[in-house]
Structures are given as C-alpha cells and as structure tokens.
C-alpha cells in the first residue's frame, strides 16, 4: 500500500504544470476555475441527453492564442469530449 502511494505520488514538476495550466486559463480570460467547472457541467448535461460521453477525460479550455500559428487572437472555447457510445438514446 505504501509503495503504491509513493508510486502514485505526482512529482512536483507535474503539479506545477497542472496548476499553471488551470491558473493561466482563468488569468487569460478573467474567468474563474469555478465558472469553468460550471460550464463543463452544463455542457456535459446537454450532450449527455443525446450520447454517452467520457466526462472524466473531457477537456474544456479557453484559449486566447491563435491556434496553429493563425493571427486570430480572439478568445475561443475548446472542448474535447470523447464519445463512448453514439447510439445510446
């Protein structure tokens, strides 16, 4: 059990990266992590009406940087939602 815990323990490098990613999302758009969580929950609810999705591995992010080297610097919402089953309902 103890060994397992040591094994599972995240290195501080990973902790720093994870904390920064969340922090910068809210810094960049003036949007708090709580609000992001609420948006995530609402999106989950709506999509779950139609299909089965993987809520644990879904990612929702607001990014201000132009994607793929584009010049567009308008903030945009990226949602990556893995679908588990398309024909559930």
């Amino acid at each position, binding site marked *: 059990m103890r060994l397992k815990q040591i094994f599972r323990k995240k290195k501080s*490098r990973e902790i*720093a*990266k994870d904390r*920064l*990613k969340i922090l*910068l999302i809210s810094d960049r758009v003036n949007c708090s992590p709580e609000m992001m969580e609420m948006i995530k929950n609402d999106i989950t609810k709506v999509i779950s009406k139609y299909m089965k999705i993987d809520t644990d591995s879904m990612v929702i992010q607001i990014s201000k940087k132009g994607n793929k080297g584009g010049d567009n610097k308008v903030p945009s919402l990226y949602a990556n939602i893995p679908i588990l089953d398309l024909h559930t309902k």
Partner: protein
Amino acid sequence: MSEVIVVTSGKGGVGKTTTSANVGTGLASMGKKVVLIDTDIGLRNLDVVMGLENRIVYNLVDVIENKCRLKQALIKDKRHPSLYLMPSAQTKDKTAVNEGQMVKLVNQLREQFDYIILDCPAGIEQGFKNAIAGADRALVVTTPEVSAIRDADRIIGLLEASEFKQIDLVINRLRSDMVKRGDMMSASDVVDILSVPLIGIVPDDENVVIATNQGEPLVGNNTLAGKAYQNICFRVAGKEVPFIEFEKSISFWTKVSGIFHKN
C-alpha cells in the same frame, strides 16, 4: 537598420538586468554598436552589473528634462568601445518620464546604434509602459517557477495587446538535475505553457553571482551561463545556433561532487 529590444519579465528578480547586461555586451563583442538603457527609475541596477557605477554624471531623466545633451548621459563601457550605457535616475520615480518621451529618446538613439536594449522594471505600471513604448521586439525572461511563469504569461498578453511582432522567451536558472528528478519544469514544459518561441536557456550557474560581484558580464567566457548568453546573442542577431545540452556537463559535475561527498 537598428533594432530596439526590451528585456522584461513582470516578476522581479528573475534576471532581467543580468540578461540585458549580457546580451548587450555579447552583441557589442560581435562588433555591433549597442546602447543599454536602464529604465528602472528609482531603482537603478544595470550600472552596478556592468561595473560602471562610478562613472555616472548624467542620467536618463536628465536627458528627458533637457538638463544635458544625449551624448553626455552615455557612458562608454570599460571593455567594448562600441558599447554604451544610459543609466537611470536613482532619486526620481517612474512618473518622471512618459511614453512619448521614451519613444522620442529611443528614436534619437536609433541613428547611432545597431541595437538599443531597454532593461525594463518589474511590474506592469508606468515603468513597464515606458520601456515597451519604443521597442520593436521583446525578450521575456522567466524562471521555471509557477509565479514567474504566471507573470510572464501576463506580460506576453500585454505585449501582444500592444502589437509586438516578435516576442522571444529566455528561460533563466534552469537546473537540469532537478528537471531530471521531476522537481522542476523543463524548458519544453515552459514553452508549452507560454507558447512563445524560445531564444535561450540559461542554467542556474553560480558564476553569474561571481560576475555580478565583479561587475563584469560573463557572456562569451567558458562558464555554462557565459556560453548560454553567447548563444542568445547569436540568435538575437539572427544566427541559428543549436541549444547546448546542459545535462552532460551537469551530470559530470554531479558525479565529481558525489565523489567528494562520499569521503
């Protein structure tokens, strides 16, 4: 064509002044005409890092207030004849200068120099606005720490908002041994998060402290940091240089010090 580069970071103490001094000195040793401007009014430091603190007569605020001619406030470097420093005022504060005055000053200097390097104060207030006002491109200095990266991200946002065409990242005080252990973010972690091009990685090197003690920038000498700064200078000037593998040399020293610790 002259180029105006602002060295900025948001957070204090990450190495803006050291980077300014070394990049300026390195470019001068490549034969370029360079002027370093300390824009940190009230807290000047670039003069001490350059070892020129005893030669100051006039400063930036004197020039702006027309108390002296531009040339009178330019201090010639001890070693490089093509390198000059314009010191900041120690007794005034940041409101003594505005953006328009800085742009005017920088444009006057463009006529005489290849590179004008502005050492920006910490923070995002007037001092920062003054420093970025006349600049063409920026070097954002950060360390692999959460607080410094957060501030760097904010600075990058502000630079993008003022339509900077070129923003490059300098990662300072990287410790490869800690990265290997998983206790420090790697250079690629930082680049991933900030998504601006990387122009240099400077390892955490005690020689930087020694060089500052002596008032002599270490760029170009045989230390790890000296080599790293030399490479940054080449890249600033447009040359492509591969990134040094710090791991090799550091692991060698870890081994050596390991032998000592055993006994």
